[in-house]
Each structure stands twice: as C-alpha cells, then as structure tokens.
C-alpha cells in the first residue's frame, strides 16, 4: 500500500486514518465537499509526514462529477492502489420516516452514490488487476432495527453490494474489504446521549490501517467484539426481535 484515495476524507474516522497513513509516509488523495477543510487537512498531513497530498473538492452525491473525479484519480502518480470509502450520513430516523425526500436522500448518500463510485473504481482495478477497495459500512447494517433501520438498511445494502463485488473482483486479485465499526465518537454520533460509551476514534483508525496494510480480514468488525455482539443479534428469531425496541 503506497497511494491511498479517501472518499469523504474530512470525516472524523477518515482524518484519523489519514494521519496514521501520513506518519507511514504514504501518498494520499483526499476527496470531500469543502475545499477549505481539505486545505487544512492537507497541511496537517504534510507536516505529519505524508509523501504527497492531493485534494479534490466534490459533493459525491452529485454522480455527474464522478467521471471528473475518476479522471483526476487515474492521473495520479504513483497510481492509486487503495480506495477507502469513508463517507456516510445518519439523519434523524423519525424525520426520515415522515419526510420521504429525507429518506431518499439518506439512501442515496449512503448506498446509491457509494455503489456508483465503487463500480467506477472496481472497473479500473479489475482491468489493471491491481488495487484494493475498502468501505466503511456499519454494524447497523447487520440487522434492521426499529430505531435506526433507514441508515441501517442503506449500510446493509452497501455491505451486500460489497459481498458481490468481492466475488466479482476475486479472479482479478483485487481484495474488497468491508469495515463495520460499532458506534464511535465522531461528528456523526455527537448528538446521541451516552456517546461516552462509544469507541475512541483512534482505536478504530488503528484497526482500519492494520487491515488496509494486510488487506485482511475482508470483513472487519471494529472494535473486534462487535463481531460477537452482532452474531448474537442476528441469531434472535424475527418474531421476538420485532418486539424489541432497539
């Protein structure tokens, strides 16, 4: 792993991952909405040791800009060998239940735009028979829950998409890594009470970097114990689960 492209680079987790990669002297390509924030991040990562930092400002929900983004990414030298998709949105579930455009936005941001982007990178990597795709989904995608099923279903769909993509890219030798964090102390979860019980962002970033470096495991739960918690949650029969207010 030499050159990493991060989609949604200004997210809390992505920033911490980028710092760790910078310390290891990697080349970084950062994509996010705000040019100003990207510039701040760029100076930080340069001082921390990144070999190079390039930025591209775009709202990735705007699929019309994906081809421009791909052209920029393909022009990079050294060539991009790892893509990390780190953006997502978690809006108020009740709002999404009532306002259908909020629901559609949520599904579009978390799933449709991500699937479109990942397909573009997959086509490139498959053809080059090189590269690695890593995507941050969520443990919330492992089972639909009353309180968070809209975000959960978008992340679950993304995880399913990655399962298929993994199989498709396997002959080309391109690993596809699904990263499923439990709740982490990030900008996304700041408003939730009991956030003090959530995982520290650096612990999660460390797990992600180790996985990117080794390109394994292909399904990462972080912190690790979520693998077992989610196995338990998936095992509850639906007729019981539907009564649980979680």
């Amino acid at each position, binding site marked *: 792993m030499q050159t990493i492209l991060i989609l949604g680079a*200004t997210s*809390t987790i992505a920033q911490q991952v980028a710092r760790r990669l910078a310390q290891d002297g990697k080349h970084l390509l950062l994509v996010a909405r*705000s040019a*100003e*924030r990207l510039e*701040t*991040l760029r*100076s*930080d990562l340069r*001082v*921390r040791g990144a070999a190079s930092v390039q930025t591209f400002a775009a709202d990735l929900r705007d699929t019309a800009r994906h081809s421009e983004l791909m052209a920029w990414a393909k022009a990079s030298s050294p060539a991009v060998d790892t893509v990390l998709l780190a953006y997502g949105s*978690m809006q*108020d*579930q*009740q709002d999404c*239940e009532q306002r259908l455009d909020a629901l559609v936005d949520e599904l579009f941001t978390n799933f449709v735009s991500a699937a479109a982007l990942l397909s573009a990178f997959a086509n490139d990597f498959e053809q080059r028979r090189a590269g690695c795709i890593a995507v941050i989904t*969520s*443990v*919330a995608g492992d089972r639909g*829950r009353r*309180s*968070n099923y809209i*975000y959960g279903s978008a992340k679950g769909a993304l995880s399913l998409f990655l399962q298929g993509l993994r199989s498709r890219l396997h002959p080309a030798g391109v690993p596809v890594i699904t990263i499923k964090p*439990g*709740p982490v*102390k990030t*900008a*996304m*979860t*700041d*408003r*939730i*009470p009991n*956030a*003090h019980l959530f995982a520290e962002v650096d612990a999660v970033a460390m797990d992600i970097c180790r996985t990117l470096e080794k390109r394994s495991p292909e399904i990462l739960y972080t912190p690790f114990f979520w693998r077992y918690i989610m196995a338990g949650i998936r095992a509850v029969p639906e007729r019981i689960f539907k009564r649980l207010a*979680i």
Partner: protein
Amino acid sequence: MPATSARLSRKESTSVRFFPDFASWGRYPRVLHRRIHHLNWADQLPQILNGSERGALLPYGQGRSYGDSCLNDGRDLVACGRLNRILAFDPATGALHCEGGVTLSDILDLLVPKGWFLPVTPGTRFVTVGGAIANDVHGKNHHRAGTFGCHVRRLGLYRSDSGLIECSRETNWPWFRATIGGLGLTGIIVWAEIQLRPIQGAMIDGESFAFRSLDEFLERGAESDAASEYTVAWLDCFSGSKTRGVFFRGNHSAERGGKLRPRSGPRLRFEFPGWLLNRWSMKAFNSAYFSWHSFAAGEAVVPYDRFFYPLDSIARWNLIYGKKGFLQYQCVVPESGLAAFKEVLDRIQRARMGSFLGVMKRFGAVESPGMLSFPRPGLTLALDFPLRGERTLRLLEDLDRIVKDSGGALYPGKDARMSPAMFQASFPQWREFQRYADPKFSSSFWRRVTAEC
C-alpha cells in the same frame, strides 16, 4: 449501533445532565451541562456562537484543569478536541502553527524525533495548546523560560463580537494579554503559533538528591537553578514537623537519539474505594518514596517522558481518589514571604491530609504577557487533597489566609473552592481583564470568584 430516533429527538430539550466525558480532572465539583457543541472545524464557529446567548459558552479541551475553570454549570461547552490539525511547521526556525485543540503529546510525538521540544511543558502531556495558553501553564524551567504564554508568537481568537482576530505583541495586544491566562473567557483559540526549542535528542541528564530541611531545599535549589534548566522538588507531606523531600534537576542531554516513543503503562478503569487512601497508607507511601529516592539518588540519563511526565504513564490516575474526587492546591508565596511559606508547609505537614503529590519549585522573574497569569517570583507549592469534607476545606481556607497576607496567589486552573475575596485580592487585574472577556463566554469558576465579596 448509533442513534435511536427517540433519543435524537430529545436533543433540543433544555434540561441539563451530566456528561461523563466533560468533567474536570479533580472530578469535583460534579457539574451538569445543557449542551456540548462539538467543534470539528473552525468554520462551524459562527453558527455555534451566533446561536448562543450571553454567558452560555466555554471552550473545553482535554479537561485537565483540576477544578471548575473548565466547567460551565447549567450552560454549554464548546468541545475543541477535534480542532487538532497542524497548520505548518518551519524546521529552520522551530515555529509551529497549529489549531488550538492539538495536544502537547501530539506535538512531542511528531517533533521530538525531528529535534524540537516544547519551550515550556506542564506535568502532563495530555493538554491542548489552547488550554496551555488559557491557563498560561508553567513547568520545571520556569526560572529560565517563564510560562507557556511567553513563547506564543501569535494566536487566532474567534470572538462573538468581532469574529476571528489575530493577536500578538504587535496587533490586538490587549486581547493577546487577556487571552494568555484568560481561562478561555476571551473567545475560542482557533490557532496559535508557538516557538519550539531545539534539542539534540530525547534524553534528559537527570539528577536527584534528598533534602532534609527547607533551608537545604532553598540553598541547593538556588545552586540547581543556576546550573539546570529544569528543577522541581517532591515534598513528603507526612513528615511531621520537619521538612523533607527529593530534589530533581535536569538538562537536555547532548546525547543524540534515545527512546522516542512514550511507554504506556496501566490504565485505571474504576474509581478506587475511598478508604484506600488514608493517613496510614499515604504516610507509608511517602516514607517509602523518600527512602527509595534517598537511596537511589544520583545521576541518570532518562527518556524525556519519564523525567517530565511520570504520572502520564498511569492513564486516568485521578480515579485513585475515588468517587468524591480531590482538590489540588497550588499557591505561590513571594520571595519576601518565606515565613509564610514555612507556615503553610508546617500546617500541611501537621494536618496530615495531603497525599503523594506534593511538589515545590521556585518561580523565576521572567514576566509573562498574560494579564491574569498566575506565576510570580517566589516559591510555589502544589499538592493533592483527597476530598474529606469540611475538614479539608477548613484547612485550605486557613492556608488561603496565610497566602493572601503574604501577597501570594492561588492557581485558577487548579482551584475549585477559593473565595471571591481571595481571588480578587490576588488577581486585582481581574476588573481590567473583564473588559476583554467575550460577553457570550463564562465559566463556573469565573461566576464563583467574581461574585460580590
């Protein structure tokens, strides 16, 4: 598995609650807040400040202030921990330009390997640059280098009335002076430029020796201050009528390289039971510590983190004081008040209520630009007191009286209890300072000490 909708919809409620991640290091007082504004990027500041009323806000860094100067009872905090990007570093001059939430630990990890060190460091590396400025922290080299604020070249201050302003000795000087040691009340320190100092390697040529009287401490201390960049003394708080302790001194070693990564030690996960720290266990600890160091006295080349941050090796060591938390007492008594200093020591040693962390040092004469800066030439003493109710508070009030009469002062960043009269007598500049405070900012500490007296 984030977000239940029912929980999210409660976010607008105006009720207050306890946020465990936003307490003070002494864990006393336990304060309820209304809301935490997380500052991820500087561009969010207009939104946060415009939407707040008078006195609603206070910046919060790593929560290493001991008392209530980092708390804002019933109101809001602005969490600045994620404002932690380094904006530029000039390897030719050692000037570091960074956001206010960058920790000293982060700076050390990054720049010690490149041959640069903090100009001044407190006893923990886990504070933010903004917090170090707002408390105008000092370290073992105060007699040479002054306070942290002496090494700040410029800072970017975001205020509710004027937006982002740059402050330095040349521009906006009154705001620069007010912000250094300004307890976060003058606005949000968005960025700062600090001057680092060059080092050869990560090691310290350290030396320690035991002393058995205050006179011996003063005499050998003066000699050490002349020869060493860093000096500090540990005090046995349970030695009865005689003063004894261990003196530590050191200089950056000329040796290159050295162990650069801090060792990580154990982490306390739970509050210790309150009875564990009692007069006998503490006396035993103090005696053992004194005996060990008088036995092991001598010179040694040690990694910088062991010399400066011995307590940082135990994460969350503050939990050792149990549920009730603890008070830290740090006073300074002017050079002329030696008799008062002796009396303070005597009272503490006789009361036998201290703990393992008694520390003494002589402050030098380097003047800080800070308007409300605490250090002033003289002797300073810092120690922890497990909170044992009225008895502890009465003892500290007695000490206050002695300190005040000598013309000394208490350290706001470590205080949770001094009276308005004590504060106003030892920081008479506070009324001038208030002209530069941001009207939308306030703190539990500030409301307490500026009350009518």
